[in-house]
C-alpha cells in the first residue's frame, strides 16, 4: 500500500504544477492581449456589437467572406462618422457552425462583452441554439444567413434579413405546376438548407397534385452516376437539383454530361446565383427554372459593395448574389436601428419588425412580425447561360 500512496501523492503535486503552468501560459497571453487592446485610441466609447461566425470547421468557407464584409461595412460606417458619432466595434467570436459553440459564443458576447445586439449566427444550427440564450438576456439576434424554416417566429428577439428556404421551395413548386409538370425527379444533398428547400417544395408540389421521386446524397459524394442513372430512368418531366454548395452541383452537371442526360432542369439559389456555372454548362441549362434571392446588378449599393470588396481584399466577393449583400446590409441596418432606438437589444428587436422597404445592397428589406424577411425569392429562367427574371 505504501508505495502506491506515495505515487499518487507525487502525481497530485505534478498535476497541480501542470495546472499552474497552464494557467500561467493562458493568463500571460490574456494579459498580453489586454495590453494590445489598451494601446488603441480611446477617443470615444465605441458601440460594441457581437458577431458570431463559423470561422473554423465545416462552415468556415462562409464565415471568412462574411467577416470580411462585416469589417468592410464597419470601416465605411466609422470613416463616415460612426453611429450617432460613436464608432462601431465588432467583437467577433467563432461559433463553428454548431449549437454548442454558438451558445458558448453567445454567452461570452452577452455576459463578458455586454453586447446588446449580436450579428449572427450564420448556420441555422447556430441561430436556433443561440436564440434562447439571447432571449433570456433580452439581446437581439440578427442573422443575415440562417435560412431554416424552423427559425420563423422562433422568438421576438430573433430576426433575419435572409429569406427562409420555405419561400424558394414554394415559388419553384408553383412554377413547375404552371409549366404542366406532374412528376419531378429530385436530388438533395443531406444538409439542413437543402432539406429545408425540399420540404417546402414537396409540400406545395404534392398539394398541387405533383409526384416526386427523390434521392439523397451525403455532402462528401464524388460519384453521382448511379443515383443519376436511377433518376434518369424515372422519366420525370423535370429534374430538380438541390445542393448545399457549388462543387457538388458542378460534379453533378459534369456527370450528367458524361451520361448524356439532358432533362429539363430546376435548381435552388446555390446554382441560380452562380453565373459562372450557368455559363459553363450552358447547353444543359437552357430553359432551366431557378428561384433566386438576389441583388439587382444595377443597384448602386450592390455594385459599390462589389467594387469596394475587390479593392480592399483583392478578390471577388464570394456568394455575391446571396449572403454577401445581406451581410453588408445587416451592419447598416444595425447602424440605422441603433440611431433610431439606441443600443438596446429589446428596443432594437421591436424596431426590427418596423423595417419596411429599407434600401440596401440586397434590394428592399421588409421584416415581418415573425422576424422573417418578406418577399425573398423571385422566379428566374436560364436563357443562353444567364438567369433572367421570368415574366
Amino acid at each position, binding site marked *: 500500500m505504501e508505495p502506491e500512496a506515495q505515487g499518487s501523492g507525487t502525481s497530485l503535486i505534478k498535476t497541480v504544477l501542470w495546472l499552474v503552468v*497552464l494557467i500561467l501560459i493562458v493568463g500571460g*497571453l490574456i494579459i498580453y492581449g489586454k495590453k494590445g487592446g489598451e494601446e488603441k485610441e480611446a477617443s470615444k466609447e465605441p458601440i460594441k456589437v457581437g458577431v458570431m461566425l463559423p*470561422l473554423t470547421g465545416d462552415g468556415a468557407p462562409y464565415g471568412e467572406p462574411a467577416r470580411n464584409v462585416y469589417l468592410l461595412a464597419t470601416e465605411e460606417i466609422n470613416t463616415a462618422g460612426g453611429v450617432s458619432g460613436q464608432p462601431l466595434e465588432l467583437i467577433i467570436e*467563432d461559433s463553428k457552425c454548431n449549437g*454548442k459553440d454558438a*451558445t*458558448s459564443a453567445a454567452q461570452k458576447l*452577452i455576459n463578458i462583452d455586454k453586447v446588446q445586439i449580436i450579428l449572427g449566427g450564420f448556420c441555422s444550427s447556430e441561430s*436556433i441554439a443561440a436564440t434562447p440564450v439571447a432571449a433570456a*438576456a433580452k439581446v437581439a439576434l440578427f442573422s443575415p444567413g440562417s435560412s431554416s424554416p424552423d427559425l420563423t417566429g422562433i422568438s421576438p428577439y430573433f430576426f433575419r434579413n435572409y429569406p427562409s428556404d420555405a419561400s424558394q421551395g414554394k415559388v419553384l413548386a408553383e412554377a413547375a405546376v404552371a409549366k404542366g409538370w406532374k412528376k419531378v425527379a429530385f436530388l438533395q444533398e443531406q444538409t439542413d438548407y437543402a432539406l429545408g428547400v425540399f420540404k417546402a417544395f414537396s409540400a406545395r408540389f404534392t398539394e398541387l397534385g405533383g409526384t416526386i421521386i427523390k434521392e439523397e446524397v451525403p455532402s462528401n459524394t464524388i460519384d453521382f452516376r448511379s443515383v443519376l442513372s436511377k433518376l434518369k430512368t424515372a422519366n420525370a418531366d423535370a429534374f430538380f437539383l438541390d445542393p448545399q454548395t457549388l462543387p457538388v452541383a458542378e460534379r453533378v452537371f459534369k456527370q450528367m454530361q458524361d451520361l448524356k442526360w439532358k432533362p429539363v432542369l430546376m435548381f435552388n439559389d446555390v446554382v441560380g446565383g452562380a453565373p459562372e456555372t450557368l455559363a459553363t454548362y450552358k447547353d444543359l441549362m437552357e430553359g432551366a427554372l431557378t428561384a433566386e434571392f438576389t441583388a439587382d446588378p444595377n443597384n448602386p449599393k450592390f455594385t459599390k459593395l462589389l467594387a469596394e470588396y475587390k479593392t480592399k481584399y483583392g478578390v471577388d466577393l464570394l456568394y455575391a448574389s446571396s449572403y454577401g449583400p445581406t451581410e453588408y446590409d445587416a451592419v447598416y441596418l444595425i447602424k440605422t436601428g441603433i440611431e433610431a432606438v439606441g443600443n438596446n437589444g429589446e428596443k432594437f428587436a421591436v424596431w426590427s419588425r418596423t423595417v419596411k422597404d429599407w434600401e440596401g445592397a440586397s434590394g428592399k428589406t421588409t421584416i415581418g412580425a415573425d422576424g422573417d424577411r418578406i418577399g425573398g425569392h423571385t422566379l428566374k429562367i436560364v436563357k443562353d447561360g444567364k438567369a433572367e427574371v421570368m415574366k
Partner: protein
Amino acid sequence: MEYLTHLAVLVGIYSILALSLNLVLGYAGIISVTHAAFFGLGAYTSAILTTVYDLNFFLAALCGVLVAAIISLFVGTVLSKFRGDFVALGSVGFNVIVWSVFLNVQELTRGPLGIPGIGRPNLEFGIWNYEFSSNVSFLVLSVIFVALVYFLCQFIEKSSFGRALKAIREDEEALQVFGYRTLHYKLAVFVIGAGLASIAGALFASYITFIDPSTFTINESIFLLSVVILGGLASNRGALIGALALVLLPEFLRFVGFPSDIAAQMRQVVYGVMLIVLMLYRPQGLVGEYKL
C-alpha cells in the same frame, strides 16, 4: 457569471462523458471510438420523447439509458469478436452507422434539420412544479448527476468487478485461466459506460435546446478519447480534470488577443500545440496510472 455558469454546465456534461468512457477505456482497456454514438442516442431519445411525446425529462433520460444499454449490448457483443486495435476500427464503424441513422431516419430525427425547441427538465409533484429553466438551476442538476456518476465510478473501481476489469486490461488470458468469463465483464462495463454517456446526452439536448447529427460524429468520439487520455486513464479524478481542461481551454483562448483575422485559426493551433506538448511530457495524462 452567466458565462461561467454556462461553461460549468458544459464541463459537467463532458465530465459524465469522460467518466463513462474512462470505465471502458481506462479500466477495461477497450479502445472505444464510438462514445459519441451513445451520447447521441441519449440526446436523440430524450429529445424526441420530450418534444413529440411530451414525456418528462427524467423519464425520457431513463428511456435513453435503456436504448443506449440495449444497443451497446448488441454492439459490444459484435466488438468482442475483434482483437486488439481492431476493436477501435470496429467501433469507428458503429459511430458512423449511428450518425447515418440520425441523418437519414428523418421521420424520427428530422435529419440534418435537427431537433429545435427541446425543453428544460421539470419536476412535477401534484401541484408543485419546478422547471430547471435558469442556468444556475441547471448547473445544480448537472452537478448532482456528475456526483452520482462519479460515486458510481468510484464504487466500480473499488469493487471486485473493478479489480477484475483492471486485470483484464493487463492480461485477459491470465484471467480466463482463472475461470473468469472475461467477455461478460467487458460487456457489462461497455453497457454501463454507454448508459452513463446517454445521460450526458439527455442533459446536453435539454441544455442546448437543439441537437443535430453533426454533434455526434467520430470527431466528438476522438475528442472524448483525448479528454480521457489527457486527464489520465483509469483515474476518475483524471477524467474530471481532463473534461475541465479540454472544455475550458478553448474558451479561455477566446480572451487571448490574437489579431482578429487569424484569431479563430490561431486558437485552434494553440489548442493543438498544447495537447501535443502535454502528451509529449505526460503520456500517462495529468493524473493517470495507466498508459495505452
